[in-house]
């Protein structure tokens, strides 16, 4: 898995708590080595996944967005992934209109028992993102450094914390 060595890119994952998040756990328990680029956000259901979260991420510099939920018919809430499938398919097709390569976005189904599959999904997606490279930047560095300043400003107020 070449991507394990290359420098990391910015990949954000939105995972359904009932299946794919568990699948990622299963992969961990099985020690299925994966690229480290991905950062996972836990969702109650892909039905909760607002396509705008993905767009927000892209405009904020994400190089890839991955959404994974329960296989169709297997939704813990019966219909969540059916709604998700429509919303996310529209999103996937809309991205090229915005000039974002559709391959930067992937949605799919991984159950809690499919640890090995999860490893493949993460690896494959990360490989694709590395092929595509970093996404086009939206705004000049000054905004960035403003943010940095903000971060710097927020310092712990407590007396010498134990570390």
């Amino acid at each position, binding site marked *: 898995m070449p991507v394990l060595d290359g420098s990391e890119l910015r990949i954000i994952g939105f995972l359904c708590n009932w299946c794919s998040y568990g699948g990622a756990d299963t992969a961990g328990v099985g020690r299925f080595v994966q690229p480290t680029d991905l950062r996972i956000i836990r969702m109650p259901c892909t039905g909760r996944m607002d396509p705008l979260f993905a767009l927000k991420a892209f405009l904020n510099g994400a190089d890839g967005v991955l959404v994974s939920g329960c296989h169709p018919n297997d939704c813990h809430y019966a219909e969540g992934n059916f709604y998700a499938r*429509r919303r996310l398919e*529209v999103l996937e097709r809309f991205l090229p209109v915005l*000039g974002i390569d559709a391959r930067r976005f992937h949605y799919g*189904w991984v159950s809690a028992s499919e640890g090995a599959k999860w490893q493949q999904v993460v690896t494959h997606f990360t490989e694709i993102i590395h092929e595509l490279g970093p996404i086009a930047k939206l705004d000049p560095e000054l905004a960035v450094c403003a943010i940095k300043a903000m971060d710097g400003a927020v310092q712990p107020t407590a007396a010498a914390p134990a570390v």
Partner: protein
Amino acid sequence: MSQLEILKEAVAKALPDLDLVLGWRQGINILRTAPFIIRSAKDLDNLVWNRLCVNNLSSQLMHLRDKRVGILVKGCDSRSVVQLLQEKLISRESVKVFGLPCTGVVDLKKLSRSVDLDRVEAAVVTERTLELSADQGSLSLPLPEVLADKCLVCKYPNPVIHDALIGEPVEPWAPAELPAQAAFAAMPLAERFAYWREQMDRCIRCYACRNSCPMCFCKDVCLGDSRDPHWQSQETSVREKWMFQLIHAMHLAGRCTGCGECERACPVGIPLLTMKRELNAITQDLFGYEAGVDPAATPPLMTFAVVEEKIKESEW
């Protein structure tokens, strides 16, 4: 009897059972019309109906939900009414629709490229041309050059819904190929991102696009100016401006009738309709759905099919 006279008569007849009727009157100059509210028969004297009645009046309907409203609609406007009905945002009983068959309206943005709008003294639309006269002479422009893009590709010149149809239905014409749309379609992926970044950079966050959109019913609780939830900050970076357009677009997915009010209203001329047309093409292709033609239909993103015929899920 002219179409306008028939219209006035019809409205006058209906007025007693209505709180108000939405129509057009002459605007600040000869080329501009403006929406106005007809409450009594005498208001009818100000009513105009011509190729310059560009506004889609249905964007007002959501605010008048508690009134019995009459509304004048062109073919394109009528689709907004249908979509609003379909989403049960207005009730059929409380709207009376006066349908106006339409052969296209003039796009003042296009016109302003060849004339100074404020100096025009008279404008007459003939079969094929727009005849303008000003102090220093007159000008004849072929209609296709001055009609709005949406009219050149219009599939519904006759209102799809109406209680009264004013005048004879017109013969639909073959949609023309829009140079702007074709140019965008031909644009390589890499350039599109830069293209939109440039376009969005011009946005001044005036929200005219939103306010003129008949499908945008959130209005004063719009995510654009809400701070809880905090989808948008007040900063005027391209990111925030683009994000707002994406919110607007996604909220219109499977609902947009392509009436083009957003683009017409945009003071800095961002090609918003281009983006919406692409989006509509997607929902059309995926769900075989066209917004605002069937009051009984369900917007595609408000439902699902256990087996989606057009959605090919990825192998992995």
